[in-house]
Protein backbone atom coordinates (compact mmCIF):
# COMPACT_ATOMS: atom_id res chain seq x y z
CA UNK A 1 0.00 0.00 0.00
CA UNK A 2 2.73 2.34 1.01
CA UNK A 3 4.86 1.36 -1.97
CA UNK A 4 1.98 1.87 -4.38
CA UNK A 5 1.33 5.33 -3.03
CA UNK A 6 4.99 6.11 -3.41
CA UNK A 7 5.01 5.18 -7.09
CA UNK A 8 2.03 7.36 -7.87
CA UNK A 9 3.56 10.22 -5.98
CA UNK A 10 6.79 9.77 -7.83
CA UNK A 11 5.19 9.72 -11.22
CA UNK A 12 3.17 12.80 -10.43
CA UNK A 13 6.07 14.60 -8.93
CA UNK A 14 8.30 13.84 -11.85
CA UNK A 15 5.74 14.98 -14.33
CA UNK A 16 5.19 18.26 -12.61
CA UNK A 17 8.85 18.82 -12.17
CA UNK A 18 9.41 18.32 -15.87
CA UNK A 19 6.75 20.83 -16.84
CA UNK A 20 8.30 23.42 -14.61
CA UNK A 21 11.71 22.71 -16.02
CA UNK A 22 10.55 23.19 -19.59
CA UNK A 23 9.53 26.72 -18.75
CA UNK A 24 12.80 27.31 -16.99
CA UNK A 25 14.68 26.42 -20.14
CA UNK A 26 12.38 28.74 -22.04
CA UNK A 27 13.42 31.49 -19.68
CA UNK A 28 17.06 30.66 -20.42
CA UNK A 29 17.71 29.65 -16.84
CA UNK A 30 19.16 26.25 -16.22
CA UNK A 31 17.88 24.29 -13.25
CA UNK A 32 20.73 23.15 -11.09
CA UNK A 33 19.54 19.58 -10.99
CA UNK A 34 18.03 17.72 -13.88
CA UNK A 35 15.06 15.55 -12.90
CA UNK A 36 16.89 12.35 -13.86
CA UNK A 37 19.78 13.31 -11.65
CA UNK A 38 17.47 14.10 -8.79
CA UNK A 39 15.80 10.75 -8.99
CA UNK A 40 19.05 8.83 -9.20
CA UNK A 41 20.36 10.74 -6.24
CA UNK A 42 18.28 8.74 -3.78
CA UNK A 43 20.85 7.07 -1.56
CA UNK A 44 20.91 3.70 0.16
CA UNK A 45 20.54 5.07 3.65
CA UNK A 46 17.34 6.86 2.90
CA UNK A 47 14.04 5.91 1.37
CA UNK A 48 13.39 6.89 -2.21
CA UNK A 49 11.89 10.35 -2.13
CA UNK A 50 9.49 11.95 -4.55
CA UNK A 51 10.89 14.40 -7.01
CA UNK A 52 10.44 17.99 -5.90
CA UNK A 53 6.98 19.41 -6.31
CA UNK A 54 6.81 23.12 -6.88
CA UNK A 55 3.13 23.60 -6.47
CA UNK A 56 0.71 21.55 -4.50
CA UNK A 57 -2.18 22.13 -6.86
CA UNK A 58 -2.13 19.95 -9.94
CA UNK A 59 -1.92 21.77 -13.24
CA UNK A 60 -2.26 20.30 -16.65
CA UNK A 61 -1.63 22.60 -19.61
CA UNK A 62 -2.32 25.57 -17.37
CA UNK A 63 0.03 28.53 -17.57
CA UNK A 64 2.08 29.06 -14.46
CA UNK A 65 4.65 31.65 -13.61
CA UNK A 66 7.88 30.49 -12.04
CA UNK A 67 8.79 32.99 -9.38
CA UNK A 68 12.27 34.27 -8.87
CA UNK A 69 12.52 32.36 -5.58
CA UNK A 70 11.52 29.17 -7.37
CA UNK A 71 14.31 29.73 -9.84
CA UNK A 72 16.72 30.17 -6.98
CA UNK A 73 15.73 26.97 -5.18
CA UNK A 74 16.44 25.11 -8.40
CA UNK A 75 19.77 26.78 -8.91
CA UNK A 76 21.07 26.55 -5.39
CA UNK A 77 22.40 23.36 -3.82
CA UNK A 78 22.31 22.09 -0.28
CA UNK A 79 26.03 22.87 0.01
CA UNK A 80 25.28 26.54 -0.69
CA UNK A 81 22.94 26.83 2.30
CA UNK A 82 24.21 24.33 4.88
CA UNK A 83 26.22 25.18 7.99
CA UNK A 84 29.69 23.85 7.42
CA UNK A 85 31.73 22.51 9.06
CA UNK A 86 29.07 21.03 11.30
CA UNK A 87 29.18 21.14 15.10
CA UNK A 88 29.49 17.47 16.07
CA UNK A 89 29.94 15.32 19.16
CA UNK A 90 31.24 11.81 19.60
CA UNK A 91 29.22 8.82 20.75
CA UNK A 92 30.97 8.76 24.11
CA UNK A 93 30.25 12.43 24.91
CA UNK A 94 27.76 13.01 27.71
CA UNK A 95 24.36 14.50 26.97
CA UNK A 96 25.30 17.29 29.40
CA UNK A 97 28.29 18.28 27.27
CA UNK A 98 26.11 18.16 24.17
CA UNK A 99 23.60 20.42 25.94
CA UNK A 100 26.42 22.92 26.54
CA UNK A 101 27.50 22.59 22.93
CA UNK A 102 23.98 23.43 21.75
CA UNK A 103 23.79 26.41 24.07
CA UNK A 104 27.20 27.74 23.02
CA UNK A 105 26.42 27.49 19.30
CA UNK A 106 22.71 28.19 19.56
CA UNK A 107 21.81 25.01 17.71
CA UNK A 108 19.08 22.48 18.31
CA UNK A 109 20.63 19.28 16.99
CA UNK A 110 24.06 17.68 16.93
CA UNK A 111 25.25 14.83 14.67
CA UNK A 112 27.08 12.11 16.59
CA UNK A 113 30.24 10.60 15.12
CA UNK A 114 32.08 7.41 15.93
CA UNK A 115 35.45 7.15 14.19
CA UNK A 116 34.43 9.99 11.88
CA UNK A 117 31.36 8.08 10.71
CA UNK A 118 27.88 9.46 11.31
CA UNK A 119 26.12 7.11 13.73
CA UNK A 120 23.30 9.17 15.19
CA UNK A 121 21.85 12.52 16.06
CA UNK A 122 20.92 14.19 19.33
CA UNK A 123 18.20 16.82 19.16
CA UNK A 124 17.10 19.35 21.73
CA UNK A 125 14.14 17.08 22.43
CA UNK A 126 16.50 14.27 23.47
CA UNK A 127 18.18 16.72 25.86
CA UNK A 128 14.85 17.78 27.38
CA UNK A 129 13.87 14.14 27.80
CA UNK A 130 17.25 13.43 29.42
CA UNK A 131 16.80 16.29 31.89
CA UNK A 132 13.31 15.05 32.56
CA UNK A 133 14.35 11.42 32.95
CA UNK A 134 17.46 12.21 34.95
CA UNK A 135 19.94 10.66 32.52
CA UNK A 136 21.58 13.90 31.35
CA UNK A 137 25.02 12.70 32.40
CA UNK A 138 24.87 9.52 30.34
CA UNK A 139 26.60 9.11 26.97
CA UNK A 140 25.11 10.11 23.65
CA UNK A 141 25.19 6.63 22.16
CA UNK A 142 22.70 5.40 24.74
CA UNK A 143 20.03 7.90 23.77
CA UNK A 144 20.75 9.16 20.27
CA UNK A 145 18.45 8.61 17.37
CA UNK A 146 20.09 6.06 15.11
CA UNK A 147 17.60 6.11 12.30
CA UNK A 148 19.02 9.03 10.37
CA UNK A 149 17.85 10.59 7.11
CA UNK A 150 20.62 12.48 5.35
CA UNK A 151 20.84 14.77 2.37
CA UNK A 152 23.58 14.91 -0.21
CA UNK A 153 25.46 18.17 -0.59
CA UNK A 154 24.68 18.35 -4.31
CA UNK A 155 20.90 18.16 -3.84
CA UNK A 156 18.98 21.20 -4.98
CA UNK A 157 17.32 23.29 -2.31
CA UNK A 158 13.96 22.48 -3.83
CA UNK A 159 14.65 18.88 -2.99
CA UNK A 160 15.81 19.79 0.50
CA UNK A 161 12.56 21.69 1.09
CA UNK A 162 10.62 18.64 -0.06
CA UNK A 163 12.56 16.47 2.40
CA UNK A 164 11.76 18.82 5.27
CA UNK A 165 8.09 18.67 4.34
CA UNK A 166 8.20 14.93 4.05
CA UNK A 167 10.00 13.98 7.28
CA UNK A 168 9.15 16.86 9.54
CA UNK A 169 12.68 16.97 10.94
CA UNK A 170 14.24 20.23 12.04
CA UNK A 171 17.58 19.47 10.44
CA UNK A 172 19.41 17.06 8.17
CA UNK A 173 23.02 16.01 8.33
CA UNK A 174 24.59 16.52 4.90
CA UNK A 175 26.95 13.96 3.34
CA UNK A 176 29.26 14.40 0.39
CA UNK A 177 29.84 11.84 -2.37
CA UNK A 178 32.26 9.95 -0.10
CA UNK A 179 29.70 9.66 2.68
CA UNK A 180 31.61 12.12 4.81
CA UNK A 181 29.58 14.42 7.04
CA UNK A 182 30.17 17.90 5.60
CA UNK A 183 27.42 20.00 7.17
CA UNK A 184 23.99 20.38 8.71
CA UNK A 185 21.06 22.09 7.05
CA UNK A 186 17.93 23.57 8.63
CA UNK A 187 14.93 25.37 7.13
CA UNK A 188 16.40 28.56 8.59
CA UNK A 189 19.61 27.98 6.62
CA UNK A 190 17.59 27.72 3.42
CA UNK A 191 15.68 30.90 4.18
CA UNK A 192 18.86 32.83 4.97
CA UNK A 193 20.56 31.53 1.86
CA UNK A 194 17.62 32.57 -0.31
CA UNK A 195 17.48 35.98 1.32
CA UNK A 196 21.19 36.52 0.67
CA UNK A 197 20.80 35.43 -2.92
CA UNK A 198 17.82 37.71 -3.43
CA UNK A 199 19.72 40.59 -1.90
CA UNK A 200 22.74 39.94 -4.08
CA UNK A 201 20.62 39.74 -7.23
CA UNK A 202 18.72 42.86 -6.26
CA UNK A 203 22.02 44.70 -5.84
CA UNK A 204 23.18 43.40 -9.19
CA UNK A 205 19.95 44.57 -10.80
CA UNK A 206 20.28 48.01 -9.23
CA UNK A 207 23.91 48.28 -10.36
CA UNK A 208 22.93 47.19 -13.87
CA UNK A 209 20.15 49.74 -13.99
CA UNK A 210 22.48 52.51 -12.79
CA UNK A 211 25.00 51.62 -15.51
CA UNK A 212 22.25 51.66 -18.09
CA UNK A 213 21.00 55.07 -17.01
CA UNK A 214 24.54 56.48 -17.01
CA UNK A 215 25.21 55.10 -20.48
CA UNK A 216 21.98 56.52 -21.82
CA UNK A 217 22.74 59.92 -20.33
CA UNK A 218 26.20 59.86 -21.89
CA UNK A 219 24.69 58.82 -25.23
CA UNK A 220 22.24 61.66 -25.14
CA UNK A 221 24.98 64.07 -24.24
CA UNK A 222 27.10 62.81 -27.09
CA UNK A 223 24.19 63.18 -29.47
CA UNK A 224 23.53 66.75 -28.50
CA UNK A 225 24.35 69.31 -31.11
CA UNK A 226 24.30 72.97 -30.20
CA UNK A 227 24.16 75.62 -32.91
CA UNK A 228 24.36 79.25 -31.87
CA UNK A 229 23.71 81.74 -34.62
CA UNK A 230 23.90 85.52 -34.54
CA UNK A 231 21.16 87.10 -36.61
CA UNK A 232 21.59 90.60 -38.04
CA UNK A 233 18.76 93.01 -38.53
CA UNK A 234 17.75 93.32 -42.18
CA UNK A 235 20.00 90.47 -43.35
CA UNK A 236 17.46 88.77 -45.61
CA UNK A 237 20.20 87.10 -47.63
CA UNK A 238 21.31 84.91 -44.73
CA UNK A 239 17.85 83.75 -43.75
CA UNK A 240 17.36 80.03 -44.02
CA UNK A 241 20.91 78.88 -43.29
CA UNK A 242 20.11 77.85 -39.73
CA UNK A 243 17.02 75.90 -40.70
CA UNK A 244 18.99 74.24 -43.47
CA UNK A 245 21.54 73.07 -40.90
CA UNK A 246 18.80 71.77 -38.57
CA UNK A 247 17.23 69.83 -41.44
CA UNK A 248 20.55 68.25 -42.36
CA UNK A 249 21.18 67.08 -38.79
CA UNK A 250 17.66 65.73 -38.30
CA UNK A 251 17.55 64.02 -41.67
CA UNK A 252 20.87 62.33 -40.97
CA UNK A 253 19.33 61.00 -37.78
CA UNK A 254 16.40 59.55 -39.64
CA UNK A 255 13.78 61.83 -38.09
CA UNK A 256 10.39 61.76 -39.86
CA UNK A 257 10.16 64.38 -42.68
CA UNK A 258 7.08 66.02 -41.16
CA UNK A 259 8.91 66.60 -37.87
CA UNK A 260 12.03 67.85 -39.66
CA UNK A 261 9.85 70.31 -41.56
CA UNK A 262 8.21 71.63 -38.39
CA UNK A 263 11.57 72.23 -36.71
CA UNK A 264 12.92 73.95 -39.83
CA UNK A 265 9.87 76.22 -40.13
CA UNK A 266 10.20 77.30 -36.49
CA UNK A 267 13.88 78.15 -36.96
CA UNK A 268 13.18 79.99 -40.21
CA UNK A 269 10.29 82.04 -38.87
CA UNK A 270 12.22 82.87 -35.69
CA UNK A 271 15.18 83.93 -37.78
CA UNK A 272 13.20 86.09 -40.19
CA UNK A 273 11.36 87.67 -37.25
CA UNK A 274 14.69 88.85 -35.86
CA UNK A 275 15.78 90.03 -39.32
CA UNK A 276 12.57 91.91 -40.02
CA UNK A 277 11.53 93.28 -36.66
CA UNK A 278 14.48 93.53 -34.30
CA UNK A 279 17.75 95.33 -33.85
CA UNK A 280 19.49 91.97 -34.05
CA UNK A 281 19.64 88.90 -31.92
CA UNK A 282 20.72 85.36 -31.51
CA UNK A 283 19.26 81.89 -31.95
CA UNK A 284 20.43 79.01 -29.80
CA UNK A 285 19.49 75.61 -31.09
CA UNK A 286 20.11 72.34 -29.37
CA UNK A 287 19.30 68.96 -30.83
CA UNK A 288 19.44 65.81 -28.76
CA UNK A 289 17.87 62.40 -28.94
CA UNK A 290 14.57 63.67 -27.57
CA UNK A 291 13.87 67.06 -29.09
CA UNK A 292 14.98 70.14 -30.93
CA UNK A 293 15.01 73.28 -28.79
CA UNK A 294 15.07 76.65 -30.46
CA UNK A 295 15.62 79.73 -28.35
CA UNK A 296 15.49 83.09 -30.14
CA UNK A 297 16.39 86.26 -28.26
CA UNK A 298 16.72 89.76 -29.66
CA UNK A 299 17.81 93.16 -28.43
CA UNK A 300 14.50 94.87 -28.97
CA UNK A 301 12.51 96.95 -29.54
CA UNK A 302 10.05 94.37 -28.19
CA UNK A 303 6.47 93.57 -29.06
CA UNK A 304 3.84 96.01 -27.83
CA UNK A 305 1.01 93.51 -27.78
CA UNK A 306 2.00 89.85 -27.82
CA UNK A 307 -1.62 88.68 -28.12
CA UNK A 308 -2.06 90.76 -31.28
CA UNK A 309 1.25 89.51 -32.67
CA UNK A 310 0.06 85.94 -32.17
CA UNK A 311 -3.00 86.70 -34.27
CA UNK A 312 -2.82 85.50 -37.84
CA UNK A 313 -2.56 88.30 -40.42
CA UNK A 314 -1.42 90.95 -38.01
CA UNK A 315 1.97 92.37 -38.97
CA UNK A 316 4.20 95.34 -38.31
CA UNK A 317 6.65 94.46 -41.10
CA UNK A 318 8.10 97.35 -43.08
CA UNK A 319 7.80 97.88 -46.85
CA UNK A 320 11.09 96.17 -47.73
CA UNK A 321 10.13 93.03 -45.87
CA UNK A 322 6.68 93.03 -47.45
CA UNK A 323 8.22 93.49 -50.88
CA UNK A 324 10.16 90.30 -50.31
CA UNK A 325 7.13 88.33 -49.30
CA UNK A 326 7.50 88.64 -45.57
CA UNK A 327 5.10 90.38 -43.25
CA UNK A 328 2.20 88.03 -43.82
CA UNK A 329 1.52 88.20 -40.13
CA UNK A 330 1.87 84.45 -39.97
CA UNK A 331 5.31 84.03 -38.46
CA UNK A 332 4.44 83.61 -34.79
CA UNK A 333 1.24 81.62 -35.45
CA UNK A 334 3.28 79.34 -37.73
CA UNK A 335 5.84 78.77 -34.99
CA UNK A 336 3.17 78.03 -32.45
CA UNK A 337 1.43 75.60 -34.77
CA UNK A 338 4.66 73.72 -35.52
CA UNK A 339 5.92 73.58 -31.93
CA UNK A 340 5.20 70.97 -29.27
CA UNK A 341 6.30 73.49 -26.65
CA UNK A 342 6.05 77.24 -27.14
CA UNK A 343 6.74 80.23 -24.90
CA UNK A 344 7.10 83.89 -25.87
CA UNK A 345 7.99 86.79 -23.61
CA UNK A 346 8.36 90.37 -24.75
CA UNK A 347 8.14 93.91 -23.51
CA UNK A 348 8.22 97.14 -25.40
CA UNK A 349 11.63 98.75 -25.06
CA UNK A 350 13.13 95.43 -24.02
CA UNK A 351 13.81 92.36 -26.04
CA UNK A 352 11.79 89.40 -27.16
CA UNK A 353 12.49 85.87 -26.04
CA UNK A 354 10.95 82.97 -27.84
CA UNK A 355 11.39 79.35 -26.90
CA UNK A 356 10.03 76.47 -28.92
CA UNK A 357 10.63 72.74 -28.94
CA UNK A 358 9.76 69.90 -31.27
CA UNK A 359 9.85 66.30 -30.10
CA UNK A 360 11.62 63.99 -32.49
CA UNK A 361 9.08 61.25 -32.02
CA UNK A 362 5.37 61.51 -32.53
CA UNK A 363 3.34 62.03 -29.38
CA UNK A 364 1.81 58.57 -29.39
CA UNK A 365 5.19 56.85 -29.59
CA UNK A 366 6.98 58.81 -26.91
CA UNK A 367 6.54 58.20 -23.22
Amino acid at each position, binding site marked *: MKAAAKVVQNANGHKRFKSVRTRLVGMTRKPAVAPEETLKAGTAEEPVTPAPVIEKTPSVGEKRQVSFVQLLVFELRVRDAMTSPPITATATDSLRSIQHLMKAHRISGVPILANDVLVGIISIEDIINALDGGHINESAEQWMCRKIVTLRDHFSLVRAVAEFDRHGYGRFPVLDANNRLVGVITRGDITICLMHQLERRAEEAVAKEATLVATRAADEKAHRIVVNTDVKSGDFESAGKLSQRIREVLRARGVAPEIV*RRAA*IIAYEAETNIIIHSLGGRINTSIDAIKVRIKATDRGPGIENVDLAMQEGWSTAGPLAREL*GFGAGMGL*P*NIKRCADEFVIQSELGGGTRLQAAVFLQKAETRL
Partner: protein
Amino acid sequence: MKLKSASKLPALLTCVEARPLTDLAEVELRGCYISDLLSDVLANAQPGVLWVTIHVHRNVVSVASMKDITAVLFTCGRKPEPDIIAEAAEKGIMLLSTTLTTYETAGKLWKAGLR
Protein backbone atom coordinates in the same frame (compact mmCIF):
# COMPACT_ATOMS: atom_id res chain seq x y z
CA MET B 1 -5.62 59.33 -56.81
CA LYS B 2 -4.05 59.06 -60.23
CA LEU B 3 -2.56 62.14 -61.75
CA LYS B 4 -3.09 62.99 -65.39
CA SER B 5 -0.08 62.87 -67.67
CA ALA B 6 -0.41 66.63 -68.03
CA SER B 7 0.71 66.93 -64.40
CA LYS B 8 4.19 65.88 -65.41
CA LEU B 9 6.56 68.76 -65.30
CA PRO B 10 7.97 69.03 -68.86
CA ALA B 11 4.47 68.70 -70.33
CA LEU B 12 3.32 71.73 -68.38
CA LEU B 13 6.05 73.84 -69.92
CA THR B 14 4.21 74.18 -73.18
CA CYS B 15 0.87 75.20 -71.70
CA VAL B 16 2.33 78.15 -69.78
CA GLU B 17 5.19 78.83 -72.23
CA ALA B 18 7.68 78.42 -69.40
CA ARG B 19 11.41 78.34 -69.84
CA PRO B 20 13.43 76.08 -67.55
CA LEU B 21 16.09 77.79 -65.45
CA THR B 22 17.50 74.55 -64.04
CA ASP B 23 17.65 71.00 -65.38
CA LEU B 24 14.21 69.44 -65.32
CA ALA B 25 13.42 65.88 -64.37
CA GLU B 26 10.39 63.93 -65.51
CA VAL B 27 8.43 64.15 -62.26
CA GLU B 28 4.78 64.21 -61.38
CA LEU B 29 3.50 67.17 -59.44
CA ARG B 30 1.18 66.57 -56.54
CA GLY B 31 -0.60 69.85 -57.07
CA CYS B 32 0.03 73.57 -57.15
CA TYR B 33 0.20 76.39 -54.62
CA ILE B 34 0.13 80.06 -55.45
CA SER B 35 1.21 82.66 -52.91
CA ASP B 36 3.57 85.56 -52.55
CA LEU B 37 3.65 85.39 -48.80
CA LEU B 38 6.44 83.15 -47.58
CA SER B 39 4.85 82.34 -44.23
CA ASP B 40 1.66 81.41 -46.00
CA VAL B 41 3.60 78.90 -48.12
CA LEU B 42 5.32 77.59 -45.02
CA ALA B 43 1.98 77.15 -43.34
CA ASN B 44 -0.18 75.83 -46.16
CA ALA B 45 1.74 74.41 -49.13
CA GLN B 46 1.96 70.64 -49.45
CA PRO B 47 5.20 68.83 -50.23
CA GLY B 48 5.73 67.83 -53.85
CA VAL B 49 3.79 70.68 -55.44
CA LEU B 50 4.56 73.39 -57.99
CA TRP B 51 4.79 76.81 -56.34
CA VAL B 52 3.89 79.83 -58.46
CA THR B 53 5.19 83.21 -57.25
CA ILE B 54 6.53 86.55 -58.40
CA HIS B 55 9.30 86.53 -55.79
CA VAL B 56 12.76 85.72 -57.07
CA HIS B 57 14.95 86.23 -54.02
CA ARG B 58 16.93 83.65 -52.06
CA ASN B 59 14.25 83.08 -49.43
CA VAL B 60 11.99 81.50 -52.04
CA VAL B 61 14.56 78.74 -52.44
CA SER B 62 14.85 78.38 -48.64
CA VAL B 63 11.10 78.11 -48.20
CA ALA B 64 10.70 75.73 -51.14
CA SER B 65 13.45 73.54 -49.78
CA MET B 66 11.93 73.55 -46.31
CA LYS B 67 8.55 72.45 -47.61
CA ASP B 68 10.01 69.91 -50.07
CA ILE B 69 8.41 71.76 -52.94
CA THR B 70 9.29 70.14 -56.27
CA ALA B 71 9.42 73.16 -58.54
CA VAL B 72 8.99 76.93 -58.47
CA LEU B 73 7.50 78.84 -61.40
CA PHE B 74 8.22 82.58 -61.54
CA THR B 75 5.63 84.70 -63.36
CA CYS B 76 5.71 88.04 -65.20
CA GLY B 77 9.02 87.11 -66.79
CA ARG B 78 10.93 87.38 -63.53
CA LYS B 79 14.17 85.44 -63.02
CA PRO B 80 16.38 85.03 -59.97
CA GLU B 81 20.09 85.86 -59.94
CA PRO B 82 22.39 83.09 -61.23
CA ASP B 83 23.74 82.28 -57.76
CA ILE B 84 20.19 81.73 -56.50
CA ILE B 85 19.44 79.45 -59.45
CA ALA B 86 22.63 77.55 -58.64
CA GLU B 87 21.54 77.22 -55.01
CA ALA B 88 18.17 75.84 -56.06
CA ALA B 89 19.82 73.33 -58.40
CA GLU B 90 22.07 72.23 -55.55
CA LYS B 91 19.05 71.68 -53.31
CA GLY B 92 17.24 69.75 -56.02
CA ILE B 93 14.54 72.34 -56.63
CA MET B 94 13.57 72.93 -60.24
CA LEU B 95 13.02 76.53 -61.34
CA LEU B 96 10.99 77.80 -64.31
CA SER B 97 9.98 81.22 -65.58
CA THR B 98 7.04 82.40 -67.66
CA THR B 99 6.13 85.77 -69.11
CA LEU B 100 2.46 85.17 -68.26
CA THR B 101 0.91 86.78 -65.19
CA THR B 102 0.13 84.69 -62.15
CA TYR B 103 -3.57 84.78 -63.00
CA GLU B 104 -3.04 83.58 -66.59
CA THR B 105 -0.64 80.93 -65.37
CA ALA B 106 -3.09 79.64 -62.81
CA GLY B 107 -5.86 79.40 -65.43
CA LYS B 108 -3.75 77.50 -67.91
CA LEU B 109 -2.36 75.08 -65.32
CA TRP B 110 -5.84 74.33 -64.05
CA LYS B 111 -7.08 73.77 -67.58
CA ALA B 112 -4.14 71.49 -68.30
CA GLY B 113 -5.25 69.26 -65.45
CA LEU B 114 -2.96 70.26 -62.60
CA ARG B 115 -5.30 70.15 -59.65
